[in-house]
């Protein structure tokens, strides 16, 4: 869900036949700053993305884990046999073990000087993003995801 001008909300719902590890992964556009357990921010050329990732189906939302990719032998050569330079792109994982999961990812594009914890949880069903006149409210309840900001509201059935 994209609420103009600067908000993105993603809800990932998973239901399985049995308990298995369920992982949500995000690749930031640069090395992220992490405010454990659930928040991160990435700054690219004076543009910042503040984010919060929480899991709603279980009792304890998993903390974000930072990792970096690497080519591993024997799959570290290109198609003509030259060794590939390591890039070590960062990624952030949130993982639960269960039969169901519901990940809520909140993103706000802004300035680097914005506070790290731009996304705040109000209660079990409500979050707010931003401050003052630019606050956006996010609600996940009663089979509906809604995102309400100064310019309007998006509502989507989720069950």
């Amino acid at each position, binding site marked *: 869900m*994209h609420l103009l001008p600067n908000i993105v909300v993603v809800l990932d719902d998973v239901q399985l036949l049995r308990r298995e590890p369920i992982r949500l*992964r995000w690749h*930031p556009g640069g090395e992220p700053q992490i405010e454990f357990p659930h928040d991160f921010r990435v700054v690219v050329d004076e543009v910042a993305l503040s984010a919060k990732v929480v899991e709603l189906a279980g009792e304890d939302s998993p903390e974000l884990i930072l990792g970096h990719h690497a080519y591993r032998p024997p799959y570290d050569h290109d198609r003509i046999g030259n060794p590939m330079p390591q890039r070590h792109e960062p990624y952030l994982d949130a993982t639960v073990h269960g039969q169901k999961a519901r990940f809520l990812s909140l993103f706000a*594009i802004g300035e680097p000087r914005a506070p790290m914890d731009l996304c705040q949880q109000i209660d079990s069903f409500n979050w707010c993003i931003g401050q003052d006149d630019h606050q956006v409210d996010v609600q996940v309840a009663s089979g509906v995801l809604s995102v309400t900001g100064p310019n309007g509201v998006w509502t989507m*059935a989720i069950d």
Partner: protein
Amino acid sequence: MNHTHPDAGQIEIHGHARPLIVDLGSVPYPDLNARCYYHFSSEGHNQINVAGRPQRWDLEHEAHCTHSAFDDELGGWWQIDLLTCTSRSRT
């Protein structure tokens, strides 16, 4: 987005023309072992993964957009059903 990678359901986020949540793109991996390189595989994409199983990306197992709405002033939203491309094959 989809560029013949198993990336159904992935999103990218760009702000002021800057890449903030990204697709890692392609590198010259050998076609025969493409799935062993993270630029190709589900490991290198912004998506849900169950038990490390890769997404299926053939035409018979495509994801489907079930609902969507867009507005020039407000933005947009969409729902994608990934059941087909993430379910286990019968063996």
